[in-house]
């Protein structure tokens, strides 16, 4: 649980200064110290999870716990780069541990071969941020509700073929800072003789401005009522990915997994059916989401994991360091179009 107080242990070692030099020059020493004091839970070590793990470990968090109950399959070897090819049949989190640790020995990396569903509430409370991938809607809603109450930052994300999303809940009152250039006072005439030539504004003269943002829960974000006049009016500017996400979450709820290439024919039929059901239940036209998506949401595409994992990783870094405006509150990536949008869903 972080507040705006600086972390203990102000000393940054020479090793850290050398290794983190290029990022300290970007986000500053204070941010790096906060990262260094943060513990993160990452659920799910598929393609997206591996990317997030890499990004957070490289950033220099205090600890990363990787939790996954799934086993390494043939697909896993194609999807992620932490798991050795010889690890088939092993637990995914445990198989990823060694390579993950090598990324940065200064981070405490741990692996837990367990289901997130089976963890007691207490388990989640030991972290500063929780990142959920490969999770069902119900699990994510439950964990989000629990963590948000305790000021723990929650992130959710997943990749489905060419598509991916990430969601954040930083709580109803999230405080952060933004670095802005200092305003230059106009120089007045000096008393003594020749007027001094004004030196240009030093680009390093900046000031930290405090800001606050408010986030809603995942439940609220997903349960937007599209039957109101206001919602209908905003529909035109709403990324259609939002509805695609509902379809894919429903698929997982029903089948206990994401669409898989091995059963692509059957899954495609189911996806179209779910699309019809979901849109109808929202009071919307089924043409809102054309059939097209069905061929493109299978398996995890590595480059899509890289993009979504990069955005998600950076949001976690920002939130832990409490610096720079967070994306509010869902990011959608469409790999077919190269489009990446951020939009807010939930009560105003």
């Amino acid at each position: 649980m972080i507040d705006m107080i600086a972390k203990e242990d102000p000393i940054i070692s020479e090793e850290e200064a050398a290794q983190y030099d290029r990022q300290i020059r970007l986000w500053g020493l204070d941010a790096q110290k906060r990262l260094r004091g943060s513990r993160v839970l990452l659920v799910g070590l598929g393609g997206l999870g591996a990317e997030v793990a890499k990004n957070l470990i490289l950033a220099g968090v205090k600890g990363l716990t990787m939790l996954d109950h799934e086993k390494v399959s043939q697909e896993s070897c194609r999807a992620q780069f932490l798991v050795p090819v010889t690890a088939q049949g092993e637990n995914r989190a445990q198989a990823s541990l060694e390579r993950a640790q090598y990324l940065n020995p200064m981070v405490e990396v741990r692996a837990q071969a367990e289901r997130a569903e089976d963890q007691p509430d207490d388990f989640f409370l030991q972290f500063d941020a929780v990142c959920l991938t490969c999770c069902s809607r119900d699990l994510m809603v439950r964990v989000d509700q629990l963590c948000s109450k305790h000021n723990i930052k929650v992130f959710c994300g997943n990749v489905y073929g060419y598509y991916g999303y990430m969601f954040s809940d930083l709580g109803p009152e999230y405080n952060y800072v933004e670095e802005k250039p200092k305003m230059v006072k106009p120089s007045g005439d000096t008393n003594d003789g020749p007027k001094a030539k004004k030196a240009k504004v030093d680009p390093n003269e900046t000031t930290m401005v405090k800001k606050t943002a408010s986030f809603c829960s995942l439940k609220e974000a997903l349960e937007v009522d599209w039957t109101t006049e206001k919602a209908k009016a905003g529909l035109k500017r709403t990324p259609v990915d939002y509805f695609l996400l509902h379809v894919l979450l429903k698929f997982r709820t029903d089948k206990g997994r994401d669409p898989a290439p091995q059963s692509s024919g059957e899954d495609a039929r189911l996806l179209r059916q779910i699309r019809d059901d979901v849109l109808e239940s929202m009071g919307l036209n089924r043409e809102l989401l054309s059939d097209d998506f069905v061929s493109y949401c299978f398996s995890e595409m590595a480059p899509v994991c890289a993009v979504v994992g990069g955005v998600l990783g950076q949001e976690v870094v920002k939130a832990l360091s409490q610096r720079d405006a967070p994306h509010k509150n869902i990011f959608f990536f469409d790999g077919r179009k190269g489009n990446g949008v951020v939009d807010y869903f939930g009560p105003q």
Partner: protein
Amino acid sequence: MVQLVGSLRKEVAESLSTCRVLVVGAGGIGCELLKNLVLTGFKNIEVIDLDIIDVSNLNRQFLFQKKHVGKSKAQVAKESVLQFCPTANITAYHDSIMNPDYNVEFFRNFMLVMNALDNRAARNHVNRMCLAADIPLIESGTAGYLGQVTVIKKGLTECYECQPKPTQKTFPGCTIRNTPSEPIHCIVWAKYLFNQLFGEEDADQEVSPDTADPEASWNPAETEARAMASETDGDIKRVSTKEWARSTGYDPAKLFNKLFKDDIMYLLTMDKLWKKRKAPLPLDWHQLESQGSRRPQGEVKAVGLKDQQVLGVWGYCQLFQHSIETLRSELQEKGDGAELVWDKDDAPALDFVTAAANLRMHIFSMTMKSRFDIKSMAGNIIPAIATTNAIIAGLIVMEGLKVVSGELESCRTIFLNKHPNLRKKLLVPCILDPPCANCYVCASRPEVTVKLNVLKTTVLALQDRILKERFGMVAPDVNIEDGKGTILISSEEGETDANNGKFLSDFGIRNGSRLQSDDFLQDYTLLINVLHAEDLEKDVEFEVVGDAPDKAPPPPSNQEDASSIANGNKDSAQPLRPRPIMDPSGDWTDWFGTGGCDARYCNS
């Protein structure tokens, strides 16, 4: 339902496993890119990088670990990738892509080339090689939180050099030598000083007061008189700085007093300079020494990085002394005629520049800076993180898939913003522009007009400054279109050395002359029209006619986004095409021609 291999259609997956691709660079973008390529199913990959691994790479170049520091990036990247994908067929080259071994035939082996570079010279070169070989090129760059990807295909899209890019920022000699007003002027001066004392002496890197400064004189005759006087006045210019330093045994106190006392006092005699500027205040070594030793050394609180602290004047005097003593020994160890090369990661070299720059800043009433900040500016460091590179490398492969599937028309330029724009976009895809008709690289018969003084421009300057630096040639051959085809420059080593010191006018080149310049490796011919001028600004050797002066190119009209995801979006306002801004951190462009990142990015 189509047959899938993972997320991809079967035919695409098959072409991936057979095609050959080239990755140029194994650094921040390169590591991420290699990982994405093998995981996506690309099997035959060649990667080239001339660099070795440094500890500062480890925050993002994740294929490298601490134990690899000092080793070849390309080699270690290959080994690390094979760890998680042993069936990948990777060839690694620890070499420069500008090596003539990598000729057009070499490039033709590939279905796709992807750049993961950090400097313009190499980008220009690869651009030309891909045009010559007619191979699609995916170009990209990152700086901090920003990044960009684009696709270049001969005849279909703009090439990398179609849009003029602002040339690197340089400062006039008199600003550096006489009237610095910003910290960067003092840092440039300190780097020049390093070269004059310890490195390769360069006539364009003078540190002594510039007596020929037009601002200093009340009339032209006075300028001349000053210039003449300095020739005979031993104090200022008679012997080279290095010789003089050697004659004093590189005595720090003597060097200090010359640079920070005597030379400053000389500047003060040029009183016109100080009519409207705050005059510099000379320092005296012995005075500072006695003051410094009397003042108690305060407790240095290590709250931040040690490097981020700003010392007092005496602190920098001591740093000046210690660094000189170290550098002096290094020179001695290397023997006669030895030269040191400045490197931001070489501690005494950076110490020296930090000390010298700060002392000069203090003299000119500027707030002194920490070693950390000076390292950024002197070393042209671009801050970099893993996530930006991961995102951009992901986008590169997405574009690559389109290329390999033969879907070039769906390729896009994609900009990564720090925050979503007004249309909620964090990633902004833009349709690719067609080639510029008068591009001096990819047009069918490229031609350009260069304004210069034929009486004062040497053949060597034409070769190095104009053809190589400005027009990106690596090994130019030049002949004059004078009916005789007179050879001016030959790329064969030594053949035309005798011409180097001569002026263009010595060869009959005058206003309206045409020079045919070839780079055979790049398969590139450029016709240069000479426009003779005697009224160029001070310190300006030449101008390319038609170049917009030092600003970003205007946004082309008629740009549309790829059709937006938002359902039924019929926004009438088309977004302006984001302007590529060459200056990642706002100020720190590549002053010293020593590489450094020059990512195009945009904050639309």
